[in-house]
């Protein structure tokens, strides 16, 4: 029996197909302006017995393609529990929101908090800042780590932070030091949410931003907690949805 999970996020859509809890197929595409068309392309030609959708587009998917849906909170919790059974806390930083989830010993969500009011502290923020500084998004964290010190950035609003970055550049400041400061401010923002939801223990860091080594390093330093990142942290939501689809079949 094959179970599929699709995570229709604001920036990207991921599809994971599993068989007996083993990943047999993974696909990813940019969400673009027509998420249902992209989701349709992504699942075409993929064979599965049952599919569960999550992410912001889940309800559209439910209507268009007659699938079951779960929230990304539940999907990320399930994915994290599968990948790192000993951790009970998830920090997910995606394209347009960030969330902290706390689970009990059975992997059930007992508390969560989300920031989705603005781009501050999300992947979108890092993406825009990387562009302002002339870095590719994949190198942004690596370059930031090369700086010996960080320049502090005071604005968390994406628009204001961008002007702050521009003025720092105009003053001849090192762009790696600015990058380091930006990473540090995003992590600090996640910290307050983390502290409200979960006080201790290992943290599963998921979402596309977990691919950024500077984010992982700073998170480790500032929390003094174990940070667990899977090989494909951006797939965690889709994987969780696939596992839930498998749970339903069983």
């Amino acid at each position, binding site marked *: 029996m094959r179970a599929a999970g699709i995570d229709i996020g604001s920036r990207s859509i991921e599809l994971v197909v599993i068989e007996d809890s083993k990943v047999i197929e993974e696909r990813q595409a940019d969400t673009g302006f027509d998420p249902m068309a992209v989701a349709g392309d992504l699942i075409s030609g993929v064979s599965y017995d049952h599919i569960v959708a999550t992410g*912001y587009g889940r*309800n559209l998917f439910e209507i268009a393609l007659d699938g079951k849906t*779960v*929230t*990304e*909170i*539940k999907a990320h919790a399930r994915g994290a529990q599968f990948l790192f059974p000993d951790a009970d806390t998830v920090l997910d930083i995606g394209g347009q*929101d960030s969330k902290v989830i706390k689970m009990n010993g059975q992997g*059930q*969500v*007992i*508390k*969560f908090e*989300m920031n*989705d*009011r603005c781009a501050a502290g999300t992947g979108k923020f890092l993406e825009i800042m990387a562009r302002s500084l002339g870095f590719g998004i994949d190198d942004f964290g690596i370059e930031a780590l090369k700086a010996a010190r960080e320049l502090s950035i005071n604005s968390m609003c994406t628009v204001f932070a961008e002007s702050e970055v521009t003025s720092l550049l105009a003053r001849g400041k090192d762009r790696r030091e600015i990058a380091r400061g930006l990473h540090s401010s995003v992590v600090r923002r996640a910290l307050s949410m983390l502290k409200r939801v979960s006080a201790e223990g290992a943290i599963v860091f998921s979402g596309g931003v977990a691919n950024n080594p500077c984010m992982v390093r700073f998170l480790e330093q500032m929390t003094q907690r174990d940070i667990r990142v899977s090989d494909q942290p951006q797939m965690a939501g889709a994987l969780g949805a696939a596992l839930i689809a498998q749970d339903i079949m069983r």
Partner: protein
Amino acid sequence: MSEALFKTLQQAFEQNVMDIDTLKKEGRKAIGCYCLYSPVELIVAADAIPLPLCGTKNDPVSAAEEILPRNLCPLIKSSYGFAALDTCPFFRFSDMIVADTTCDGKKKMFELMQQYKEVHVLQLPQNQNTAISLEPWRKEVEGMKDRIEAVTGVTLTTEKINRAIDLLNRERDAKKAVMDLAQLKPSPIKGSEILTVLFKVGFLADKEKGIKLMNTIVNHFSEINDNKQSPYTDKTPRVLISGVPMGIGSDKVARILEEAGASVVGYENCTGYKQVFTVPQNDDPIDVLSRQYLSIPCSVMSPNQGRLDLLDDMINHFKVDGVVDLTWQACHTYNVESFSVEKWLNETKGLPMLHLETDYSDSDTEQLRVRIEAFLEML
């Protein structure tokens, strides 16, 4: 709710505006109120029409923002916007407004509202210790009585006030009966229906008519229960909404909860169960009214143990699975109190709580939906 019953309710609501218009032309006075802390008994005792005022819709918010800061509670902006645009018929009918200094935003807004209407402001103490607060509050209530006597030309005797207390006790009992329908498991009535009934009946100038209508509604839903026609099952998650007041136009959280499959069984707020109390009658009604109204557990009070007591009572009687604590944006007192309410719910009642901070607009509907669906998945 059956279509016929909803139509009756709607007709009564529409007829009400015409009735008030007629009564006003006949010389009756009308006095508007914004807040549960204003003892309506004094208005009724003077044979004036008591009018709740509009403040639950998003439409006038942008007009209000021409004067008021954007970063202010939507209830205050909506109330002011309705007044400034003159789009609330009840505000227009009012010969004067009674308002309370519940929070900083409201009391400063009422200063600006004076340009449109006479606003009699009651200085509400923010502590319910009667040794400290009863005397000054009683003076405020007496001041309200004097002002109403001056406006209406009616002397408020003990007998008149006691009669009004009796009428409003019966009205509160009728409201309680409507809300208590949801104690049944599964509830025969949806939370959105409770909200609609309380909202629409709340505007009726003829209290007896309102009581009768609510009794009909209770009978209707009792039959639904007897015939086992509840829209829910024993497994439907039962959610209690706590926090700020809600009405038609500011009901999106209840709506999303229902769309996500929850049964909203009650409202621990001043448009819901905080209205449920019985005022005793004796030979000093001003004292009785002052005590009763001062004890309303709004988050402006510090400390506010009464809210936890009310929550405790409701959680037990309404068989609640989870609590959604609603805060209007920039309502500091409910926002801060949310922390203690959640801690108490988690530790004492073993119940999860979801805190939502939002405004009257629809801009965050999908974000709210994720949180609400995830919360229901937890229950």
